[in-house]
């Protein structure tokens, strides 16, 4: 059995882990996985899928870089009777164009992070600074909206500054530095919400270098649950992270197998858990579990 996998790229540790796990899962099941890295470009993904179709693969996994613009190519796959499973992100095409989607709810992740903060600060006044993901990327948009929903109705919590940190550590650190400068050396900031852990890790360094204690002077909540954030949590420098599991391929292969062998049509959305980790969850243990996964 040959399955094509169109991956977005390798822009973050999380994505590298997803690729690694997909490969592992395919190997476990004896699947011949054709991997195509799109270097963050939708046009490359569309190209790859059409090549898969031309090659006559049995199924296609697609981690779409953006929600829109898949109708035509998905239709083409359907006309060639090749089932498509979406991984980790959604598309806004009609749902009969793909078999199923495995993923977490980006919006929901933001909500979980927001609700955690609400529970943590109670009625205290709290100024939040936000490190957004890459401008225009769907995680950035949805995680922002979700977080705002999570803190809605709690007027004591305000987002005072919000800038893009491009999902990277270096930008996270640089932008956090300017936040600290602009907000009275950080004394006005009560919490940091970062759209991914990498930016949080960078920001934590900036906070430390400014002479403040991340985790206590400034609360840190972020999303993804990559290994490094657990180290930070173990050191008391980060407070919470919402997990986005990189193992989307396992459920996807299972659903595909069930469909192809027995014709079982899976549900249209297989949601993975958006688990919240805090310092109470024995971060070092989670770190040890995760660190071999190619993050």
């Amino acid at each position: 059995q040959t399955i094509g996998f169109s991956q977005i790229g390798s822009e973050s540790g999380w994505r590298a882990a997803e690729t690694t796990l997909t490969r592992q899962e395919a190997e476990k099941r004896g699947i011949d996985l054709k991997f195509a890295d799109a270097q963050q470009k939708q046009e490359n993904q569309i190209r790859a899928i059409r090549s898969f179709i031309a090659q006559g693969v049995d199924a296609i996994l697609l981690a779409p870089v953006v929600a829109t613009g898949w109708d035509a190519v998905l239709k083409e796959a359907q006309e060639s009777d090749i089932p498509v499973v979406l991984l980790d992100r959604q598309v806004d095409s009609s749902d009969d164009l793909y078999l199923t989607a495995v993923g977490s709810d980006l919006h929901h992740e933001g909500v979980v992070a927001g609700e955690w903060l609400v529970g943590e600060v109670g009625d205290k006044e709290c100024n939040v600074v936000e490190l957004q993901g890459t401008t225009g990327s769907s995680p950035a948009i949805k995680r922002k909206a979700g977080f705002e929903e999570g803190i809605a109705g709690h007027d004591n919590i305000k987002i005072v500054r919000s800038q893009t940190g491009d999902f990277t550590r270096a930008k996270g650190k640089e932008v956090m530095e300017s936040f600290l400068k602009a907000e009275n050396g950080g004394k006005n900031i009560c919490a940091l919400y970062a759209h991914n852990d990498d930016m949080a890790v960078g920001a934590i360094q900036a906070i430390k270098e400014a002479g403040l204690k991340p985790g206590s002077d400034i609360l840190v909540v972020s999303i993804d649950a990559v290994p490094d954030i657990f180290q930070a949590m173990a050191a008391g420098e980060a407070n919470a992270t919402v997990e986005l599991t990189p193992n989307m391929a396992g459920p996807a292969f299972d659903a595909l197998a069930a469909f192809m062998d027995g014709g079982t049509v899976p549900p249209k959305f297989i949601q993975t858990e958006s688990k919240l980790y805090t310092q109470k969850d024995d971060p070092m243990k989670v770190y040890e579990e995760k660190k071999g996964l190619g993050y």
Partner: protein
Amino acid sequence: MNGTMRFLRRVAPQIATLAVVLLLIGFVFPGFFDLSFANGRLYGSPIDILNRGAPVALLAIGMTLVIATGGIDLSVGAVMAICGAIAASAITAGYGLPATLLMALGAGLACGLWNGVLVAVVGIQPIVATLILMVAGRGIAQLVTEGTILTFTNDGLAFLGSGNLLGLPTPVVIWLSMGALVTLLVRRTALGMLIEAVGVNRRASMLAGVNARLLLVTVYMVSGLCAAMAGIIVAADIRGADANNAGLFLELDAILAVVIGGNSLLGGGFSLVASLIGAIIIQSVNTGILVAGFPPEFNLVIKAVIVLVILVVQSPAIHGAGVLFSFARRSP
């Protein structure tokens, strides 16, 4: 004396531009110019700008020389990623700091050698030759880190990114010394003149006995070395090598710095100091946008407009009209 005057006149537009940009930032963000001395170093936004500007400033040094020969080096961002990755993996593999630095800098030199050979010996056009390493280099960096962010804990290496030296952040000291060193090297020897000659007319220079090939290779190697230093600083700063994002699009900022520094992309006469001021102007704009607190979707438009205004004001056509010139003459 004469030389000093000429130098001041050369960099006057850049200094004036920098002053205007800084004043603008000071306007939207009052506490901007506050400097304080604590924990054995200077603190304050201007210092932050010098610090954050370190990678682009370093790249601009090499880029200025490459551009002076009429070339361009698009690969510097990727070389940064490679060298950062090598530094991080060497230090986590247990090599000492000196060995690590040697390996990373050596990798930068090797990348420069590669570019230089493609340009000078094989005869591929610089933009294409370096495009190849730009594409492949990031892959090589990821090969080293295997796609992960390679974190390390070595304080010695981290010192290069976030330590203090002589009352300044280490990166500032590094780029200032590198800038001074290269400036001395090209101006105290004949290198500067020979580089310019090759940039203006390679054939005529060769017929006059200039070893254009060697010179070109050297210049790309210097660029590689500068990129390696920038890569090490960036990795040391975040205590990890991010092969995918380290130095991403920085080649454009570096080229921009050189041009804002008033250097011609066609090659020939150049001023390193002006390029360095150009780099600081760019970083000031970036920092200004960050502290101003606009929504991020406006970042690019603002940057584009500011850059355009700077370039238009500095353009030779306007310059001829003497607008900036009269202003510049009053300023020092």
